[in-house]
């Protein structure tokens, strides 16, 4: 097996480009999401992105707020109890970002279809309502018949819809722990990450912890993302901040509201990026920015016990640095 550790800068440089179909691997808008990776995309000024979200998160909120997103497909675009996604909504209302809506179940099925390399998936949802009739890709057609075309069940003759399946260029998927080869364990809901890891042409893992492969050999049933489909592994503790990573840290309530408020206008978004996105390069700088006090607070999570079985396999920063140096060869 190949050591796939890469720095966050290299991973973004090698695996993202302008105009790509990008998928942000999130477990819904408050939880696990590769947010640090999205910030690095902002720093490297990626643009004209076609983003497949399933659910929005602060990552797509930020990418859309800086004007990097031309088109997005979602099942849910908000931040749940933290409110509507101000940056994403600003981009949609202004017409900068075209947004195609589906149901959350539909998005999961479309990833599944992409993973199977199927041409389409039969649709029993998002039909006979405006998710079928309204298309941002064909805005002049109402009711639209091209977004989710009608098909006939060859066995019963009943009418259903057909979902276009999803094959993103790259998915940046956040996981709780991975080994250096790209085997990963996720704590908390997987949401769409299992299907997404098989549907995407390339997969970059963004992981909070690196563990020994012995950990995977102890719990092989829990390894739902496998090295066979993973191209790169980025070690970045607190990568989902200000969102949560079950077992490791809670969402940063104060910053969730603050960040969303700042996404409301272009000027505030720029100020936010100056302070919170463009101001770090190393992980030490990233942690210093969040601050010790905050790190300590969010790490006092009621889910902490979920990590107990895995702790003995966690690799130290020094070990990981050495392994990272080896991939540079």
């Amino acid at each position: 097996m190949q050591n796939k550790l890469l720095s966050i800068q290299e991973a973004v440089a090698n695996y993202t480009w302008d105009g790509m179909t990008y998928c942000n691997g999130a477990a819904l808008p408050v939880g696990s999401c590769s947010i640090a990776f999205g910030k690095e995309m902002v720093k490297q000024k990626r643009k004209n992105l076609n983003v497949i979200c399933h659910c929005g998160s602060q990552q797509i909120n930020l990418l859309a707020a800086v004007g990097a997103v031309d088109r997005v497909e979602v099942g849910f675009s908000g931040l749940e109890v933290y409110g509507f996604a101000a940056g994403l909504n600003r981009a949609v209302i202004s017409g900068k970002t075209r947004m195609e809506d589906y149901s959350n179940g539909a998005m999961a099925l479309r990833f599944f279809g992409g993973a199977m390399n199927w041409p389409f998936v039969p649709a029993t949802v998002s039909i006979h309502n405006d998710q079928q009739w309204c298309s941002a890709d064909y805005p002049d057609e109402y009711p639209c018949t091209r977004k989710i075309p009608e098909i006939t069940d060859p066995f019963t003759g009943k009418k259903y819809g057909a979902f276009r399946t999803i094959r993103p260029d790259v998915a940046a998927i956040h996981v709780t722990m991975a080994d250096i080869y790209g085997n990963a364990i996720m704590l908390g809901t997987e949401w769409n990450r299992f299907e997404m890891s098989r549907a995407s042409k390339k997969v970059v893992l963004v992981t909070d912890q690196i563990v020994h492969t012995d950990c995977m050999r102890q719990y092989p049933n829990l390894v739902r993302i496998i090295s066979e489909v993973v191209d790169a592994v980025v070690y970045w503790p607190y990568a989902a901040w200000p969102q949560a990573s079950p077992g490791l840290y809670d969402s940063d309530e104060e910053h969730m509201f603050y960040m969303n408020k700042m996404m409301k206008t272009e000027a505030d978004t720029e100020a936010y990026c100056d302070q919170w996105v463009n101001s770090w390069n190393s992980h030490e700088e990233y942690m210093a920015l969040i601050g010790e006090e905050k790190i300590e607070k969010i790490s006092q999570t009621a889910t902490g016990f979920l990590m107990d079985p895995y702790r003995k396999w966690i690799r130290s920063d020094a070990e990981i640095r050495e392994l990272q140096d080896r991939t540079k060869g």
Partner: protein
Amino acid sequence: MDYTKQEFMAIITGREIKDGELIILGVGLPMLAGYFAQTNHAPNLRPFTEGGVYGSTPVGGLPWGIECNRISANATSFTNAIDALGFLVLSGRADNAVIGAAQVDKYGNVNTTGIWDEPPWKAGKYLPPRVRLNGSGGASDISVGCKRYLIMASHEKRRFMEKVDYISSTGFLTGGDSRKKCGFVGGGPAAIISTLGILRPDPQTKEFYLEAYYPFTTIDEVKASTDWDLKISPDVKIVIEPTDEELENLRSVDVTGFLRKNG
């Protein structure tokens, strides 16, 4: 008795939930109503979220999301969207659900997607909205898959509309047998629980009528807060106020007072 309209609505919604049901709960108020029912009168309720979080109860107050750590600290299983929304909801297996609505119409169609000056069905095209909301999330799946489901909404004229701007979650469409013709496995909305009363669909026309209203309002106020010509049940009742025990049970779930802060 000291309670807010939101608390009243959550308790009335909770009363609609039966012990033993397999129920999927949306984010926010629906979750509080569901876990209130479990604490109050439905100890064998089988609640889950669309992320596939099973067997858990909230810790430390209203979860920030359906995958929040507050709902992940005592789960018996974590699965995924395909499982929760596909295998349990779209398959037709789930008994009940609670969803929210920004707009709801006389046939129980729900909009959570956007607000337009001229909605797509009127404009004949799909332009960016004046206000973008969240999209349907899993509520659209719930609306076609669950055996029945409950809609919670703030009772205001701009929200209780003759026709919603956008159908995100499918109710009885244009009434009568229009939903039946679509062949969905789910039975459709069983009730709209608002901040003023309980609305039920007429068995034939599927138009929602007022079955009961809360003691702090009047039929006139409910009608004035509804955009369509709301029909009133000949047996219209006044809903029994929450008991002290119900309030106590609700507040044991809503420990951060979310429903008290929001009126």
